[in-house]
């Protein structure tokens, strides 16, 4: 097993499958009376969050607690960071406190990679800038596999702001490793074609959701980040919603079995309509539940043994 999880590319097909299989066993714990396992007793997991987050932080916290690890939550607001402490000094502080794993979210792409050089424990990237978010990709892959029964050969359309999306990047890397076919869909201004196609072999790019929709097994809608809406990547929110938003009629043109995913938080009415988000094809609530199982699997596989 690897020591850190920084990128979707850190996992080869066997390791990624091991994570998903382990997550499936971890998921059974959620249905038990005692939702706790002793595997990480005495280990300390620090959640180091320099960016606001609800679901990811809570998900990692729940995962670590279900494995009996001690959890320390650190958010940049209200910490010494506001007094000017650097990432490195914060890391050394955590190191001195004996953190076995640091789960880090940071607005700067690459921050977790730097952190991994400074601490002895494992580093898990929980989202860095516009770079990567590997546990999101794992939970998405897990959700696809549990809904559709397989990953190899699936056709996945990732729709929206690919340029700024760490979710898209990690998903492209992981899904292609696991044998799925990925098509990136969005306005030309939000798809860096040369970069996207260089990420992994066999990536397709399309600017027209309606031509792609009938042939996909999975549609993954990306959040339109509000701060981008005024940056003239597209003419108006309404035009974006019209061309790349998923509404009821468009959803009905998907194949019968296709599922609709969204990493959250959603802009209802923008990239996805409430009708779609609340339909039985939507896996959005499942994705949150699966997130805990997948993060349990990651923490167990990184911290459970002596291979550190």
């Amino acid at each position: 097993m690897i020591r850190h999880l920084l990128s979707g590319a850190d996992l080869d097909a066997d390791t990624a499958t091991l994570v998903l299989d382990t997550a499936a066993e971890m998921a059974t714990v959620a249905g038990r009376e005692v939702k706790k396992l002793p595997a990480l007793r005495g280990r300390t997991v620090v959640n180091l969050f320099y960016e606001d987050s609800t679901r990811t932080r809570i998900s990692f916290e729940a995962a670590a607690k279900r494995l009996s690890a001690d959890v320390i939550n650190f958010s940049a607001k209200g910490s010494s960071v506001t007094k000017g402490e650097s990432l490195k000094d914060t890391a050394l502080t955590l190191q001195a406190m004996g953190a076995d794993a640091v789960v880090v979210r940071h607005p700067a792409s690459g921050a977790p990679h730097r952190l991994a050089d400074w601490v002895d424990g494992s580093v898990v990237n929980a989202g860095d800038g516009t770079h990567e978010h590997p546990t999101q990709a794992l939970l998405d892959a897990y959700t696809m596999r549990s809904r559709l029964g397989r990953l190899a050969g699936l056709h996945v359309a990732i729709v929206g702001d690919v340029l700024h999306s760490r979710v898209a990047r990690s998903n492209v890397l992981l899904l292609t490793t696991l044998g799925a076919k990925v098509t990136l869909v969005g306005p030309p201004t939000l798809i860096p074609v040369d970069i996207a196609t260089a990420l992994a072999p066999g990536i397709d790019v399309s600017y027209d959701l309606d031509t792609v929709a009938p042939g996909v097994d999975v549609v993954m809608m990306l959040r339109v980040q509000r701060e981008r809406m005024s940056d003239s990547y597209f003419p108006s929110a309404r035009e974006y919603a019209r061309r790349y938003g998923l509404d009821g009629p468009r959803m009905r043109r998907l194949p019968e079995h296709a599922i609709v995913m969204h990493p959250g938080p959603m802009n209802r009415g923008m990239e996805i309509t409430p009708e779609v988000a609340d339909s039985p094809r939507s896996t959005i609530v499942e994705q949150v539940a699966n997130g805990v199982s997948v993060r349990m699997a990651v923490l167990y596989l990184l911290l459970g043994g002596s291979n550190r």
Partner: protein
Amino acid sequence: MAYPPAAHSSPPRQPSVKVILAAADVSRVVDRIAHQILEKTQGAADTVLLGIPTRGVPLARRLAARISTFEDVTVPVGVLDITLYRDDLRRHATRAVGPTDLPPGGIDGRRVVLVDDVLFSGRTVRAALDALSDVGRPASVQLAVLVDRGHRQLPIRADYVGKNIPTALAENVKVTLAETDGEDEVRLFGGEPA
């Protein structure tokens, strides 16, 4: 010349391998344990067999099959994975977690018979007891093993023992079963030359 203890991966073939139970013996021993379970549990009423992976699982299935042949009762069989409850997790590379699969009726209020191939230090059984208390509350717990080789490190004993094998610590008992290894056999490695 002294014979070194058998390595786990490549046991020396001669002369330190001894077959303790051959295929026919294994089958007789399983039959006997099945009878003993029936006797001690008044016909296996309200009883659940839980196999501890890897080889406890096929053993539990065989016991249930024999019990239903002898007395025409169906005993539910399940699987109890103990990986996350082991006390040596940190001493080894991360172990893969296997499925825990309880029978549909669950184990609450029932008599659970844990089934494993070899009883040695007792640590596996301790882990199984911990795992059990997290998935339910059985009325009572018993233990059935194919082989008891001694050297307990915890206050644990088996209720049903297929075969007691006195061993030295350096020796190694290896159980193979048709379902997992292709053939039924119990062998002792690294013993005194015959």
